[in-house]
């Protein structure tokens, strides 16, 4: 049963991924002609216009270009950076783990903070704690991450003479510092997601708390703790799992900002540098990797969803 569902879900994901690659591919077609000239003159990516257009793959019919690009992608050839001349894949493999570590801290923070607060907020609906938590959540959704990041770097430096590290430490040089350097940016990155998860947990739990089986549980004389944590939370958390899939995309967006502020040489930083240098093959490759990650995570989340709740079928 689950196998059939997985297959169906996979078949839906493939066209989305294909359309996404078309979108990424079209990006390079949108480059205005004068920018191509600029790339040649300013960045010295080629000797003449002819060579520049050939490097961007603009010299052949569009469908041939797309099929060629796709077939190389499938074989793991992500092209070469115009700026460094090195294969993009090599650079990506070096940088991807850094972004994933940062993202993992953010997701962990979002779940560990968002869910319990959402539960308390729902169980004590309309209490002072509930109002406090809801206001904090809206505030968390309102504060721009780059501002929080800036404040966290600047303010402690002024008042305590200390600031979080903005220099990258490799794992092999100092494992402890390597791990701890992700804590501050990771938690900041997770704040908005924590707020979303808290709000969703709260509304979902409120709905479940009003269901018949919960009344039955109450009348059986079960303790509140057992009712909420064992009977309700399981049911309430199912949509939260789905939202987590959507949050992954938000968190990947945030890596661009936080890696810039905290000096982490991850994929977000790579993208930002590539954009400054007009390094289009790199921009395309990063987009493909990121979009594949998001589609894959959402696929896994949907499968987990069907596994957790046997009632749900596509």
């Amino acid at each position, binding site marked *: 049963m689950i196998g059939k569902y997985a297959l169906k879900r996979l078949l839906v994901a493939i066209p989305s*991924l294909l359309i996404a690659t078309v979108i990424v591919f079209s990006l390079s077609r949108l480059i205005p002609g004068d920018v191509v000239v600029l790339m040649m003159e300013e960045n010295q990516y080629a000797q003449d216009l002819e060579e520049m257009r050939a490097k961007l793959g603009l010299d052949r019919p569009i469908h041939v270009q797309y099929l060629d690009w796709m077939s190389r992608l499938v074989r793991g050839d992500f092209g070469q950076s115009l700026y460094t001349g090195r294969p993009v894949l090599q650079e990506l493999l070096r940088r991807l783990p850094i972004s994933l570590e940062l993202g993992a801290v953010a997701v962990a923070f979002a779940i560990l903070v968002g869910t319990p607060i959402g539960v308390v907020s729902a169980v004590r609906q309309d209490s002072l704690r509930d109002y406090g938590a809801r206001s904090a959540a809206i505030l968390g*959704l309102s*504060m721009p991450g780059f501002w*929080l990041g*800036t404040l966290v770097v*600047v303010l402690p430096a002024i008042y305590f003479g200390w600031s979080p590290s903005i220099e990258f430490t490799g794992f092999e040089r100092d494992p402890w510092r390597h791990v701890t350097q992700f804590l501050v940016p990771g938690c900041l990155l997770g704040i908005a997601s924590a707020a979303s998860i808290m709000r969703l947990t709260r509304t979902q739990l409120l709905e479940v708390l009003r269901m018949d089986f919960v009344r039955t549980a109450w009348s059986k004389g079960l303790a509140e703790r057992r009712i909420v944590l064992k009977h309700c939370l399981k049911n309430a958390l199912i949509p939260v799992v789905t939202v987590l899939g959507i949050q992954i995309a938000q968190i*990947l967006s945030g890596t661009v*900002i936080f890696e810039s502020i905290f000096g982490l040489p991850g994929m977000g930083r790579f993208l930002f540098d590539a954009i400054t240098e007009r390094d289009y093959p790199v*921009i395309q490759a990063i987009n493909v990797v*990121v979009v594949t990650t998001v589609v894959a995570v959402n696929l896994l989340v949907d499968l987990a969803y069907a596994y957790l709740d046997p009632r749900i079928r596509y």
Partner: protein
Amino acid sequence: MPTAQPFEAVASAHRPVARRRAGLARRALGGVWWFCRRKPLGALGAVIILALLVMAGFAEWIAPYAYDEQIPGGRLRPPGREFLLGTDNVSRDIFSRVVYGSRVTVTVSFATVFLSNVLAAVVGITSGYFRGRYDICVQRVVDAWQSFPFLIIILSLLAVLGPGMGNVIVSLSILVAATGSRVIRGATLTVVENPYVEAARAMGGGHLRIMALHILPNVAATIIVLVTIGLGGIILAESALSFLGYGVPPPHPSWGSMLSGSGRTYMYSAPWMAIWPGVAISLVVFAFNMLGDALRDVLDPRIRGTSRHGRDG
């Protein structure tokens, strides 16, 4: 739609125009009063938004200095009586720059929300109305768009199109429209099932007429909620782009760009440079989120329970 409404409309048609207008005004005021009492936080949000609009509209009168005016002897002065929010590293008054910066915020966010919702309404309504193969194709494209983390695809788009206000608005709109169209499609799917749609069709109404006159007014509440909730997110996105240097180009101040660039090294000695633009952004986004939540509770109980980044309606 309640059945009492047509009767009321007929009855009021016989009243003199002036009295009818006064009645309308009183009813509108009553509605506002009811909203303020039921949703005080939403009303607070509305007041902050009104203040933002006034600030953007009358920046010349409110700001004591021009946004690019370098005040002699006023470099890196802390907030105080002379300079309300202090001055920056090139002797410009930060309060004035925040006031002028609201123009970029208002222009980009309102233009984006307008453009994206027009796009979302066209895509969402046609998709929910025609259904079938067209719907499936459109929804797959929307799926693909939604898989892109917003900042990554917008930065990539701007890398191709070049920075500038117009390009920021267009690329933000396309992205916001994808999520919006999903919600509007959801609302359309339920509206289409109503008997009045069938009646309109039986009376020979064309597709365009049915969509414009019967479906659009009935999904309007959803659109209003989407607009208000969307505005907060758009302001955050615009400020993030400005922060990264891909927003509205200088010398025009925008709240995001005030936090980036050459000024960052001075923030260690002048923290007010780092604080106030961020406070402005947070306050305005907070206001839109509050108002959006309140409006959603009042206007559209259907999309209650979905998050700001939620997919379904």
